[in-house]
């Protein structure tokens, strides 16, 4: 009997090629291609007066150079505003190559194609640009002050102002027995995948078709954009996402200028063209996230119950807004976490600055929202002198209250309605896992040794698996091998393995016989993309449904061949048999029989020719049926599913150097049923590491002129193995989602969401004064100690 693979730690089938150096990333593709390089603005805000490219073509090995003036038609229009929203009254996007002005250091100005990247970069230095420098707007404070504007036609630098309210928060606060006000900040960070962006394009003049390989989180999105911008029919464009060296959100934005310019150049030059982003380019011309300033007013009762919560925040949008308001909308809604304030109002302003644009980074606004809410919970507990877990308990949505409607609209335009969860059970688990109730004893022991420790806790709810849909195609070949395609992309999540587990279980075939392809528009042209922890939920469900459909067809054909009824059949290891008999037929033969042939091409196919199968009195392919043993299905849920979890950390702060050391890190995680616990735990590990980076190390150091001072791995401090917890204690709770057939919820972003909140809480607990700005470095903690001399023991 085939063992059920769903829920087990299956080793990853993709590892074999990665470990042998046989992965295929974009830069591994296109041998012999010409290489592109991009001239980028050295100024954060300037008018372009003139561009002189005459000297470029004198550089030996240069094939072409483009500036804005060379672009025509749709290519000369601004890049798409991907997610329009009524509140985004002043959406602005850049041009593929800057027209008249530049708005951040790194904005693309000219595009050179040469024999190799070295020559292309030589050529960039031969381009002369005359600028008139304008005053840059850097940072949220300057954007709000609006003494200078990023875009002349955007008053106050305000791209959007949005408000949502459930109840009357201000009245509730005015009437509340206790009130508090908090002012918080979170700085910028970025995804920083180890592989930057990259695109290869090949134009085939014989068939008038364009093939594009790109390191993206959405093949279909890039395909639609390339076709529209280059004036091609969709059917002329294939976009293939090969192996991707990490995404974490930044590669969902599209099309990047290079994703259009590379295909344009390939078509114009009749040669394959490649662009591979280098690390400095990734820092200054991809996207960042996280930067917010928050003002919170809260009214509560003696138990700490939230009577009214009124949040205003300012979101740093960078120079442009191609991804709309997704990040601040998520902050404003997911801020609520597992709690149910009686009245809630949230207002945000999304502000332009002369810095790299902001699009989702793993968590996508949730870390900031979690930070706002959890800092508030801690402040209430401190004010009332209550245990921090008690205040949280008093505000939890209870297990019998699901589905729970918050009365707000979520990022997908659907009601913010939680499907399922059990927050009290999670709290009990995290308390046990981290040793919450024993901590005061531990603190006393440490204090006796002259050591300072603190404990923090943070809870989150994450809307995962947002729509609109994903699809899957399952095809059983005559060899018995199963070919599966889904359109969303993969950047390290082990989809090849997890999706094959689902198919193997549903079809009754061997795991080794299932091959999964993602992100190839030739195989599945209808898809959305990989973001918002949606791949397992969306494609996992679609694949499950497509496998089921394929199985139904296989059983129908096999029943006919075996002269048995479908109910008596079972499929084990790719063989259909009549239970309790020797009668059987393998799926490969069923596939042969599913396709009535005129021509035999091998021994097996002789069984399916028109003289050997079928009832002469009926059409060879029945009405409503199709030849072939395959099935296609789409999954489109009514709304998102909501995963949840809690993190706790124990830190030690050095009394002298203010260094922050992690002593224990614990995670309780509820993403419904787990397809592969090994992969889920890997996602948590990686998320926690990024969270540690975001809480303690990573920030974008812009100076007042808009130069990013730390645009290298030398200066932007990403955690190495020495900065992360040695072990992460993980406990799972499995509250299945009622919204999909597998009962799953997304897991990709969870690890990073509570980090800023949980570290701020633990450091505050250790030090005895409020932590209101994250990330926090030892020198900042040291400075805070100087401001709070009394609290120090």
């Amino acid at each position, binding site marked *: 009997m085939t063992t059920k693979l769903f829920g087990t730690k299956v080793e990853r089938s993709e590892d074999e090629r990665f470990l042998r150096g046989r992965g*295929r990333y974009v830069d591994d593709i296109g041998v012999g291609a010409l290489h592109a390089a991009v001239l980028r603005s050295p100024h954060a805000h300037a008018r372009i007066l003139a561009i002189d490219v005459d000297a470029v073509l004198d550089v030996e090995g240069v094939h072409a150079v483009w500036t804005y003036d060379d672009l025509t038609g749709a290519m000369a229009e601004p890049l798409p505003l991907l997610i329009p929203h009524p509140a985004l009254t002043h959406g602005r996007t850049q041009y593929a190559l800057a027209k008249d002005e530049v708005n951040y250091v790194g904005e693309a100005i000219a595009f050179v194609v040469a024999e190799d990247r070295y020559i292309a970069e030589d050529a960039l230095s031969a381009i002369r640009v005359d600028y008139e420098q304008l005053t840059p707007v850097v940072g949220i404070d300057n954007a709000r002050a609006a003494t200078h504007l990023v875009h002349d036609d955007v008053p106050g630098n305000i791209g959007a102002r949005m408000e949502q309210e459930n109840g009357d928060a201000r009245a509730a606060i005015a009437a509340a027995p206790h009130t508090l006000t908090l002012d918080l900040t979170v700085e910028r960070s970025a995804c*920083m995948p180890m592989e930057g962006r990259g695109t290869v394009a090949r134009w085939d003049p014989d068939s008038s078709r364009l093939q594009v390989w790109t390191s993206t989180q959405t093949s279909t999105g890039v395909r639609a954009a390339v076709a529209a911008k280059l004036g091609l029919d969709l059917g002329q464009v294939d976009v293939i996402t090969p*192996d991707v*060296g990490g995404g974490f959100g930044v590669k969902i934005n599209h099309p990047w200028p290079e994703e259009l310019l590379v295909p344009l150049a390939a078509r114009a030059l009749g040669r394959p063209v490649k662009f591979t982003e280098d690390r400095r380019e990734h820092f200054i011309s991809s996207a960042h996230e996280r930067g917010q300033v928050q003002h919170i007013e809260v009214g509560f009762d003696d138990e700490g119950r939230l009577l009214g919560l009124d949040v205003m925040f300012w979101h740093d949008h960078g120079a442009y807004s191609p991804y709309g308001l997704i990040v601040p909308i998520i902050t404003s809604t997911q801020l609520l976490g597992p709690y149910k304030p009686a009245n809630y109002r949230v207002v945000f302003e999304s502000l332009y600055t002369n810095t790299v644009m902001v699009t989702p980074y793993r968590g996508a606004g949730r870390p900031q929202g979690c930070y706002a809410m959890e800092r508030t919970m801690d402040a209430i507990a401190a004010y009332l002198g209550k245990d921090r877990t008690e205040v949280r308990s008093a505000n939890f949505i209870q297990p019998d209250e699901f589905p729970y409607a918050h009365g707000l609209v979520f990022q997908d335009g659907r009601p913010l309605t939680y499907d399922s969860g059990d927050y009290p059970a999670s709290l009990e688990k995290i308390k046990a896992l981290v040793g919450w109730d024993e901590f005061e004893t531990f603190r006393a022991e440490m204090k006796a040794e002259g050591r300072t420790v603190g404990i923090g806790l943070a809870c989150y709810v994450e809307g995962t698996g947002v729509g609109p849909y994903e699809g899957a195609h399952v095809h059983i070949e005559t060899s018995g091998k199963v070919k599966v395609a889904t359109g969303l992309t993969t950047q390290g999540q082990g989809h090849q393995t997890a999706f094959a587990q689902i198919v193997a279980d549903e079809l009754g075939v061997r795991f080794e016989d299932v091959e999964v392809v993602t992100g190839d528009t030739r195989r599945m042209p209808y898809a959305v993309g990989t973001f918002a922890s949606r791949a397992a939920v969306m494609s996992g469900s679609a694949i499950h449904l497509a496998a089921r459909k394929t199985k139904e067809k296989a059983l129908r054909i096999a029943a006919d061949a075996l002269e048995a009824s479908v109910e008596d059949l079972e499929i084990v290891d790719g063989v259909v048999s009549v239970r309790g008999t020797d009668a059987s037929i393998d799926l490969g033969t069923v596939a042969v029989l599913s396709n009535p042939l005129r021509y035999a091409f091998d021994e097996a196919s002789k069984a399916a020719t028109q003289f050997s199968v079928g009832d002469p009195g009926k059409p060879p392919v029945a009405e409503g049926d199709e030849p072939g043993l395959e099935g296609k299905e789409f999954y489109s849920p009514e709304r998102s599913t909501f995963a949840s979890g809690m993190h706790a950390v124990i830190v030690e702060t050095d009394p002298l150097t203010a260094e922050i050391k992690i002593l224990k890190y614990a995670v309780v995680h509820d993403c419904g049923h787990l397809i592969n616990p090994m992969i889920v735990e890997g996602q948590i590990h990686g998320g926690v590491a990024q969270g540690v980076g975001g809480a303690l190390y990573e920030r974008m150091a812009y100076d007042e002129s808009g130069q990013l001072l730390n645009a*290298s*791995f030398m200066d932007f401090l990403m955690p190495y193995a020495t900065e992360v917890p040695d072990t992460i204690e993980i406990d799972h709770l499995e509250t299945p989602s009622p919204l999909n057939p597998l009962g799953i919820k997304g897991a990709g972003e969870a690890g990073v969401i509570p980090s800023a909140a949980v570290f701020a809480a633990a450091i505050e607990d250790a030090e005895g004064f409020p932590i209101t700005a994250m990330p926090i470095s030892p020198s900042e903690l040291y400075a805070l100690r100087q401001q709070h001399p009394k609290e120090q023991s």
Partner: protein
Amino acid sequence: MTEEIHDVRLHVNGATYDVAVPARRLLSDAIRQDCGLTGTHVGCEHGVCGACTVLVDGRPMRSCLMFAVSAVDTEITTVEGLTNPDGSLGPVQQAFKECHGLQCGFCTPGFLTTITAGIAENPSPTRDEAREMISGNLCRCTGYQNIIKAVERAAELSS
């Protein structure tokens, strides 16, 4: 301007590659583009991330910080050369598979070469030594816990 081209003989994974390169061509680019061994990845081009690490005469080197012309007369080992003679996964590769030591796989070749050299030098690393062994390589996916486990497992498999 015409660049001077140098004829260089590189020895990679026991094979010989005669390449013609300008003096400024990085070893990482020569390995990837001239030798066609794309398993070695470039993550930062300034020697910080370690993704491009190869073994030069058995010692881990950042191939983005070395010129191809300076690799003459050395024996270079890349990720493609870490398998067992029978073609099965080598001990470090096998350990990564068992311990789920990789996700997107982009940084992995640099870890595999680094650990191969590390275990050759210290066949039985402690947990702290295992962490130290990989502390110069960046990974953005795994959080490192499983990579450290893989170092310990690789040491077991190698003994």
